């Protein structure tokens, strides 16, 4: 069998999430993955699940401003934290980083793109002028199978306040 075991009866608890500035309350198994709650219960399907095992970064969301893999995060442990998804980042129109992704053609199929944007946003908030090496290090957890890396790097550096 190729599905993770999760034996035992589930006791739902009340979990309050703050997602993109809005409050959501659920009676829920606290071990449910944040990614599934965002996608299936709140309908924020911009967050993608590429692997479900923390290895691709497609499911990245910002937790108190820091990029995390929402497929590895139990919803119970996300309670009380500020969660931002790709939809939240795009609420007031495209950000300069998103515009830079389009201009540089830093996307092909686009499936990894929300995760890339979220991760890069987290990076630029923490370090507004990252070096090229810092960008490559920080983004290495986000897989792009289409191979857009040269252009993702270029798009992020074009939004970096520094000189690379």
């Amino acid at each position, binding site marked *: 069998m190729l599905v993770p075991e999760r034996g035992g009866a589930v006791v739902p608890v009340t979990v309050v999430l703050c997602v993109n500035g809005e409050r959501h309350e659920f009676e829920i198994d606290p071990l449910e993955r944040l990614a599934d709650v965002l996608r299936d219960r709140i309908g924020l399907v911009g967050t993608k699940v590429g692997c479900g095992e923390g290895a691709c970064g497609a499911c990245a969301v910002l937790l108190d401003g820091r990029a995390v893999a929402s497929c590895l995060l139990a919803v119970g442990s996300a309670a009380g934290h500020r969660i931002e998804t790709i939809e939240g980042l795009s609420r007031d129109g495209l950000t300069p980083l998103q515009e830079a992704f*389009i201009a540089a053609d830093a996307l092909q199929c686009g*499936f990894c793109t929300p995760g890339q944007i979220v991760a890069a946003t987290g990076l630029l908030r923490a370090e507004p002028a990252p070096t090229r090496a810092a960008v490559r290090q920080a983004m290495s957890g986000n897989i792009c199978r289409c191979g857009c890396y*040269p252009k993702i790097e270029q798009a992020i550096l074009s939004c970096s306040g520094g000189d690379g």
Partner: protein
Amino acid sequence: MTRLVKTVTEMEGRFEEKWVLVEDDGLVSWEAEAALRHVGHPTPRLTGPQRVSGAARYTVDVALPGMLHAAVLRSPVAHGRVTALQVAAAEAIAGVRAVLTPASELGFQQRSGPLHDEPLYAGAPLAVVAADTLAAAREACRALAPSIEPLPFTVDIETAWQEQRFDGDLHEEARGDVEAALAAAAVRVELVVSTPGQLQTPIEPHAAVAWWKPDELVCFIATQGMFDARAELAKRFDLPPERVRVITEYVGGGFGGKQNAGFEALIAAELSRRTGRPVRLVLDRHGEQLDGGCRPATRQTVRLGATADGMLTAIDAEALVEFGMSGWRAVTTPALTLYRCADVRGIEANLRLELRRGNAFRAPAVMEGITALEQAIDELAIETGLDPLELRRRNFADRDQSADLPYTSNSLLWCYDRAAELAGWPDRDRWREPQADGLLRGMGCAAQIWWGGGGPPSHASCRLGGDGVAQVVVGVQDIGTGTLTAARMVAAEELGLPLDRVTVRGGDTAPAIYGPVAGGSQTTPSVMPAVRGAAAAVRRKLLALAGDVFEAEPDDLVVDDGRIRSRDGGLDEPYTAVTAKLGQASIDGSGNRGPNPDGYRANTFGCQIARVAVDPGTGSVRVEGIWAAHDIGRVINPLGASSQVEGGILQGMAYALSEQRVIDRTTGVPVNATMDDYKVPTMMDTPPIVVAFAPLPDTLLNTVGAKGLGEPPIIPTAAAIANAFRHATGRRAAALPLTRARVLEAIA
């Protein structure tokens, strides 16, 4: 005039003569020097805003009212007999609506059933459950608790070869007398090379959402070929194709692995038929890596004979393929076509193993073949003391060696020169001098050949409304290749409209405008001429109407930048001066891809150069740069095209360095069928990549002069890297990928 004509079509090297409907559009291919406003200029993607904002809806995102979720139970063994399944226990789980097992009577026909009671590979589907929630479906899969009696299996090429476990006949193609030519050759080399099994690993796994309605089957499918998917569903379920609708708005990568309707759509449709509810079936990552498909591993032997000055006199290529696609033999095709040579033989054996059968993965078979052939050519260069590029130039084939036909265009020599110039090839030996950091460096090159000429049938429509905005409809989905963007550029060019006044729709079979599967690098050369034809039809009608409105001769009028102008400059009016008079009417045009020119072969060519740095202490190999020059005819969108080349190169690089399906020989089970263990490249692995395109449109081939680009860039990368490794270390590894263990062994 509409005609039915007989023409030769090609898909990944399979040639077929067929009747196609052709409407003459009177267009001639844009000349090389034509001053074009949009085509040939870097253009951002049409769907960029949707994709960067998370608004794009992929198949995995489709949620319909009352939708059920399906999960798949897979075989944990390579070969076995399922003796029992606890179906009652699974059905007893709350929320379970349907359980399908090998014993179920299915509403569709398939030669080998989709569910197996004698699984022939680890990961083969045994049963499927649909339930109200995915959690319930998965729990029911666990409850099925299959009893499996293990059976013997073979998962390595060597044993299968000794046991002569052939899938289909041995395939042989030859010209001349290769044995005699080899015996007589002044210089001979022989090389045995193993290549790995490679998994497509699209980030969106295989997925389908099916809704069996009373009058129509609607399927959202992550597929590269929505019309193929429609045809497969219609055929299997015995429905008229008009009653099947396939919607594929966005696809999260395919790379060859998402063909037709596939297991997911067939099963989702069956579950929906039974339950009356929409059903979503998405492979989990483990399922995707086990059963999404793969490029089969190979073991190849290449023997070359040549004169002392490097003229090839014999090419003999043998390939053992680890259970590849049924009936698909192209590993030795490059040996038969890339170089001029009279005495040539290619032999391929497809071996049947208890492994997931290979399917298409970007440049299927040809990439494997080039990886071996181009390493052998490199050995010949060393043996003859010739510069590897010079050796290739000397053996340049200006016509198709197998078919003995001329090419519609061939800029391979340009590619050699350009790649050499960009990479600093003449100075390559300087990299072999002792390096301050103690690493061993070297440069290698490899050439590429692929088809990619496209052909009919492919259709498009164009509608110009009163607002002066044109809407183009094509019969293809955009899997990330930028097809819709290219269609917008071509239509805008022909209509003389700014880009933002052209919209393009694809990804839905409902308009019944046919387009080909996104495979074989055929989309651009097939679809873009149809788009141009449709736009031209609208332009002509518009100018005829403009002639009425402005009392001018339509032949004296041209369109440009959203305006209608007379050639003498006397008239300059916006489009809307005419279209506003249309009321609710519109100007409609249709277009199609014309036949391929008779007596030619259409191929793409290219050359890549790689530079590597090898750490002799740890065995790690880093690629420090790739320089790529490709001949794909006219480049519609240089921005998207460079992205596609970079993507192909990165997949090719990983084939040389890190990607391989690893099978545990004692159990027959793949041990790295997860994203964590299967090593696709990351940004940290990405070297600088320089891309150039030959500046020669293929004006013989079609009315836009374009050839395809999907496969070419992945083809030569691994061979170029292996040759750079040879240049750096003086050694050649017998197998790819160049893992640390293999590197240390090779340089010991």
